[in-house]
């Protein structure tokens, strides 16, 4: 199959790659752009490990054609903390996942963090029910979700403190 030039707007930068039209966004990110933080957990689009933000909304990159999303703003997990090297420098959301046990094996984590990120953007003070609803397309096989819920609650708390001007460091 002939390759074509594809331009993707990923993490606020424009990236050019050569790929055939059947290249999935997931494959383009992982294999062409080396953004391996986006994971592949299934083949039937049911797990959410491949979640990226498309114009701010979480979506599954395993069923998106890279060539079809050249006009969209794509955010991957790598886009949330560029250039950071330690936990204490990270944004509240990522820190909260680490501090509250929202991460075990970490394979679901990029997807869950991106989905949460989009939720909190739209709804800064969600109820537990709203959190569970928003995360219900991202499967985690390790945590049983209790500590994920706690992580999101903690992130909200940290973000509130931050916006109130308090410096919160672990």
């Amino acid at each position, binding site marked *: *199959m002939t390759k074509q030039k594809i331009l993707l707007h990923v993490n606020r930068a424009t990236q050019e790659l050569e790929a055939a039209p059947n290249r999935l966004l997931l494959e383009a990110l992982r294999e062409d752009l080396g953004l391996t933080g986006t994971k592949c957990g299934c083949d039937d689009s049911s797990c959410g490990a491949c979640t990226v933000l498309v114009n701010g909304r979480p979506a599954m990159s395993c*069923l998106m054609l890279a*060539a079809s999303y050249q006009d969209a703003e794509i955010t991957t997990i790598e886009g949330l903390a560029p250039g950071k090297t330690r936990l204490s420098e990270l944004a509240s959301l990522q820190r909260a996942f680490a501090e509250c046990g929202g991460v075990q094996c970490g394979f679901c984590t990029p997807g869950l963090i991106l989905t949460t990120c989009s939720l909190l953007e739209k709804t800064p003070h969600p109820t537990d029910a709203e959190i569970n609803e928003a995360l219900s*397309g991202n499967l985690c096989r390790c945590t049983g979700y209790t500590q994920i819920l706690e992580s999101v609650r903690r992130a909200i708390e940290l973000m509130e403190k931050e916006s109130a001007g308090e410096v919160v460091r672990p």
Partner: protein
Amino acid sequence: MSLPAFKLVRPRSLDEALEALLRYGPEAQIVAGGTDLIPSMKQRLFEPRVLLDVKGLGELNYIRFNPEAGLELGALATITEISESALIAREFPVLHQAAASIASPLLRNLGTLGGNLCLDTRCLYYNQSAFWRESLGGCLKKDGHICHVAPGGNFCWAAYSGDCAPALLALEATVQLAGPRGNREIPLAEFYVNDGMVRLRKAQDEILIGVRVPARNAGFEGIYQKLRIRKSIDYPLAGVAAVMRKDSGGICREARIALTAVNPAPRLLPKAEALIGKEFSAGLVDEIAHEAIRTAKPLTTSASSPEYRRRMIRIFVRRALEDLWLGRRPRDGGAKKDLLSN
């Protein structure tokens, strides 16, 4: 898992899209959100030579209401947009609940109404990998000659498993199709063919452009009940959409009930007419609920047994009618409320 090779065509207007359909003929297939088609292409259920990506047709993405035309929904409106529409939640609650119950938030962000209505039928022997299906010699619907669900028969029982269609059937929606021979609008009920292989009364070169719900159906009380094993992600194993309008004396003035995921097509329940002009009675409700299982003819196409799915249809119809008539809120086991919109 990778996709088969194809040529990607991305029209920028409906005319361009129709032209492409004409040019490539049966080799072309439409893709919108891709949430149904792409996983199926990975399984090699479809290997179109040309993929016509209609997402660029901005003209087909709208949700609008006016007292003449009624509710108009573009084929490219996403399921999230439908489930988050305050107007739909208020005036067409059954559609709101159905849309909010679809798949998961991630999939609703990509999935479109058009794709949802044109959803392929599903069966445990069909929605499998190429390796899996080959090891069994295929099935009636794809690459084979035998139906594994009803061996000996030559009818495909794969079930239509979309959620919006029953809600829209109950709201008397029509679908608008555009094709090389012009546009046409037909009742949604006539859009479906109760055959797991034929599925739709739509020509290969036609595009579904939108749906219209008559204005007179705005404000109908409605309930959508859905059987699934998980409360997210899963396709429906059985679904019931019911709407009702009562007068101030509690007499049912209008009611419609539609079923999904238990037949190759979503179906309106003919017997619902018997409710009209009646007062609430448990006996009548039971009778209609019992009648519903005559319309529901599931076979072992999904994880739950046909017996259980029919039983649930009966319970759902009864509960929906009771709740609508007696003005109760939908209970657990039905579709969840969309939390983001209220």
